């Protein structure tokens, strides 16, 4: 998951432009990681990090974001917990704002 140094960020918006999953958004003159849960952070993405002209973006590790081991594929209950899936299928969401 990208981490943005707001001191360095000059607000050019190129990270927002390249992100395929719409994770980064500009707020005023600074970029923010608005939807960290949607960052795929795997294989050769890292487009924001490479695109930033002032190296304001660095990487923060986020192991949940990578993958579940095959060991877990047959351990369903553990897997559910690992993903934070509620065992009840109907969960409450925040109302739209």
């Amino acid at each position, binding site marked *: 998951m990208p981490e943005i140094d707001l001191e360095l960020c000059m607000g050019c918006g190129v990270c927002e432009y390249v992100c*395929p999953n*719409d994770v980064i958004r500009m707020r005023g003159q600074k970029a923010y990681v608005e939807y960290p849960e949607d960052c795929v952070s795997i*294989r050769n993405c890292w487009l924001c990090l490479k695109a930033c002209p002032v190296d304001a973006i660095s990487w923060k590790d986020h192991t949940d974001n990578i*993958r579940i081991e095959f060991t877990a594929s047959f351990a369903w209950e553990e897997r559910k917990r690992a993903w934070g899936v*509620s065992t009840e*299928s109907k969960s409450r969401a925040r109302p*739209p704002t």
Partner: protein
Amino acid sequence: MSLSEQVVATDVLIIGAGAAGLFAAIRAKEAGVDVVVVDKAQSGFGGASPIGMQLINCAFPGDDIDHFALGVIDYSGYLADQDIVYAIIGESYDRIQDLLRWGVEFMREEKGGMRTQITDQPYSAEYKSRLVYPAPPGRPVHMLKIKAAALGLGVKFVDRVMLTDLLTSEGKVVGAVGFHTQQGGFYQFKAKAVVVASGTFSLPPKTVYYPGATGMALALRAGAELINMEQGKLFKCERGHRGQGVGGSSMSTYFSDYGEWWGTRYVNAKGEEFMEKYELGQRLPGRRHWGPDWRLFIPAIYREWKEGKGPCYMDLSGCANYWELLRKLYDGYCDDHVREWDYLAAVRGTLPISEVWRVPAELSIGTGGLDIGGGIRVNVDSETRVPGLYAAGTVTETCAGVAYGAASSLTACFTQGHRAGINAAKYAQNHPEPVVNEEEVKRLKRELYAPLEREAGITPDDLLANVAVIVYRSDVIKNESRLKRAVEGLRELREDAANLVAKDYHYLRKCHRAKDTLALYDINARTSLIRTESRGDHYREDYPLMDNDDWLKWLVVRLIAGKIQITAEEIPFEGKGWKHRPKPGKIDIWRLKE
């Protein structure tokens, strides 16, 4: 809520700006019609194509096309439409020439010729294929060059817009509706012909690719057929073990693609090489290339687990010179990926790649998402059964042998996109301005924004995670009781899906993706239940034999009056005069070695 509304009229509308979509756009524009390309990311950066641009299958003049085609068809369990396979392989060289014309660079030999390699197909050493390598590998720069060629011709791009439904009139496709995923504005496209090139889809945990299920689902809703939906591919991923590896770096692609050629072994928890037990293991004398082909692995790994010998690992100790071999293969091109690996390793406190290969290392194997192999049914001209609707690339029935991984799926995208573009332009030139039913637009608009209006319900993340739990439980090793449970579970989730909530437009995009993903995995489970044999990427624990007597059939899915209808259709080997036919009888793919 007052939102901006845009109405865009064009001749050909293309959904998705990946390899297939851009090829279609360029060909249609060259034919002299107006073309608009819509992508829900920034076109050129989204989709699977930028990542896939590492290896491309290509038959050079003089290559044995029959042999290449047979390899692909055999791999598909003879489900492939052989006309399409021949078209893709036969035209692949011309498409590479197109790429060269647009400025895409390839690795070259010292004398300047394109670097190519004839390799074994992953399934069997009996069949070969030829690869060419874009340079640098796996970077968006290639897609941007193709996009630049399209822009130069005057193709228009609309970015960050997600299309959720097609507009139809008198059985013909006349456009599409969608919304801006950041500002939320409503978009209505009027088009004489539509090309769906929006890619295939996958499940959490975090999938490699960005495409979603919506392209396939909207074509189904508009009357197109889906085919081979029981085929599912579980991709593997190496995961760091004992601190050496870095799961998720782009370098791990190279482990799986090349490591096995160079001596990586797959072992169970006791250190035994489990693939050796099978006769299949003998089909690749002298090498152990099981890489991209999870379907060969999954039942084997499953058996190891059942016998209490899990988990299973990749043992890297056998290829200590891997590092030098990779350098030799990729010259300077892998340095970029190496920098990535080392950076991520530093973040995680694990070893840099140059050290990984010096220690006896093991990487455990992780799941990398479950892709559906089937898709929209098209003919060799990329037409669906709905007039005005075309489809190209992995959104079509990619499992049908035309794709077993990044390499040949790109080849398929090029040719299918090329043909879809030409034919859609021809169709648009011969048809009048589309008439759009305004009532239908209003209804679709209401449905589109509905998740924003709801006060409470299920979030798209929760829904997808629940789908994933059900699907992984039933779909990796399939049997009747698991599949029945899955169908039941997914039915319950469909009720939840009617109550999806979105807090903003970003989440609205995820709502549509989640809803359509659920619908397609539901089809996947139902078709899997019907196919009582194992074939291609479909493995049934209770029917492990490939049944060439009773099951040389396609399962075709239609949506009729809101209900899914699945029919089995004989594969027309005779009718179409196809060259390659399977051996009759029941074949046990999983024979043990004598």
